[in-house]
């Protein structure tokens, strides 16, 4: 299982890569593996302001559906449109081409509540 060190993680298995006041968000390798064949992805509109912990979309596989939650709050600046047409990319490249949205971060301090890769690895091992 891949757990890159340059991103932070939530207990709902989203990851976030923070660069300046921009953050990129997706779901972890653990999450895509648990969901299995992903067939559908629903993402918010650009411009939507969503708080930390609130749902920003839905990901669906043949057997399961899961809400996607904001690792930190902010305003959506970019949505990965090609991913909506080929959501299976999330299974093959969850941290790369499988990114979902980019946001303008509202309050960078919110990131303090997230797990780093070591903490997330321990969290996954416990499940």
């Amino acid at each position, binding site marked *: 299982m891949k757990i890159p060190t340059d991103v932070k993680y939530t207990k709902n298995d989203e990851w976030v890569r923070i660069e300046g006041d921009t953050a990129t968000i997706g779901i972890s390798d653990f999450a895509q593996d648990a969901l299995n064949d992903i*067939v*559908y992805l629903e993402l918010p509109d650009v411009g939507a302001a969503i708080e930390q912990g609130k749902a920003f979309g839905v990901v669906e596989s043949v057997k399961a559906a899961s809400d996607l939650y904001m690792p930190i709050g902010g305003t959506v600046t970019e949505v990965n449109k090609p991913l909506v047409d080929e959501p299976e990319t999330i299974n093959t490249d969850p941290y790369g081409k499988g990114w979902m949205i980019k946001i303008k971060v509202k309050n960078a301090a919110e990131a303090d509540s997230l797990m780093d890769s070591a903490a997330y690895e321990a969290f996954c091992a416990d499940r």
Partner: protein
Amino acid sequence: MSKKNKKPTATLPADATNGAATTVVESPTEPAVEVPPAASSTDATLPAKAPAPQVLEPLIYDLGSPGRVGVLLPALDVPEADLPKDLLRGDLDLPEVSELQVVRHFVKLSQLNFAIDKGFYPLGSCTMKYNPKLNEDTARLPGFAHLHPLTDDEGAQGALALMHQLQGWLGEISGFRHVSIAPAAGAQGEFAGILMIRKYHLERGDTKRTKILIPNSAHGTNPATVTMAGFTAVELPADVDGNVDLEALRAACDDTVAGMMITVPNTLGLFEAHILEVIQLVHDCGGLMYMDGANMNALMGVVKPGELGFDVMHYNLHKTFSTPHGGGGPGSGPVGVNEKLAPYLPGPIAAIIEEAATPEDAPLYGLVMPEKSIGRLKAFHGNFGMHVRAYTYIRIHGASGIQNITRHAVLNANYIRVNLQGEYTIPHNRYCGHEFVLEGHWEDVPDIHALDISKRLMDYGFHPPTNYFPLIVPEALMIEPTETEDKATLDTFISAMKQIAAEAKSDPDLLRTAPRTAPVTRLDEKRAAKELVLCCRPIPEWAE
């Protein structure tokens, strides 16, 4: 074991036994059901450039020819009126087939189904018992089938009397004095129950109750119902014995709890050992108790939920009272309540609106809405056709027959349980109700799952148990035999389950590639979800 042994064993018809007719417990490997010739088991791979997939039976649309008519209708016997030309539609894209084509098509389709009338169907929590033929006849009597729902009370006395009596009998069986048979299915009965609990609190000015407690073994409909009614579902864990964890319950009970939904026996098939304490705890914090009656086949004549202290429950007439499942419905989900909730029942309810003048006369029945009703859940008065069937079923059984249903349903389930406890892990292995749950996997063959066992059972001529439910048991297989199966059938099933347990270790591919004798092999569900072909007709341009 020789063939002379009378003990029932799991075998398939002779033509499906791969020529090994001298042994009895041979495993099925060849199709027992006709499949198109080109799809034989030797042709397991798709050609490189896949042509149009073969079909078991063409779609009804593909059988037609332009201009063909299936039904002759009478000629117009009144003068023609003007049709408003600019309001009319263009082509109507329906099939053009003869009556014989329709009959053959649907008979062929029916033959692709498994059904209770064909064989053993131990689908847990669904109560797949025999559906008596008489029920189908009574529901189709012209006086019922052709009765308009908005008939004046005076013209519907037969139907209303039947509904009134059915309400009474259901109340007697469950210990609830007030029953509404309006809900169309179990899920709607649940919804009605939770809406009543909501209204009860609101009418008392108690607005802070926002939570409904649900054990983690609950049916999926329970949490969905709670959300629909505007409440939040709070999950409670089970203790080591499969009962509600009393400590967790105690901690969760406060003045924000509107009520608790619980299935009895629970979805492990076990009667809650501390049911009276559970009810007391919830009542003490001001909450009401809802019983999911899906498992009523384990309780009739054994205990009345109303007497245990429950405030409301729903019944599934299509489970316990054998109105058929119809390949997914229609059902019927009456609710029974105590005095507290009676004013809130969904309506309309059949009631006596004028007592009989003399003992020889019948009273006048009518339909009434309870004073503070949560409202109407569907148009008209419930799935009346299902009421007729349930009435017929209760009437023919009578008090002793109803008791015998539960006793034999529980006997059958326990008989299978003790016979499988060697080959399978049975969590919480104690006397069960009308069903029990086992784990469909073994540590020494980790890549065999409950699903594989289920599919392999099809090759032995059985419908699989419920898979992967309840969620709290890994690789769950939930087995509910019902009372209408005889010992020989159960023995054959037990033998098949044991055989499959052996195959899992000796030849696991038999399980992984099962079923081989069903009309189709395993399906590509990913393709179905990805391509979403939900309709075989193109949308005409004018409609875009």
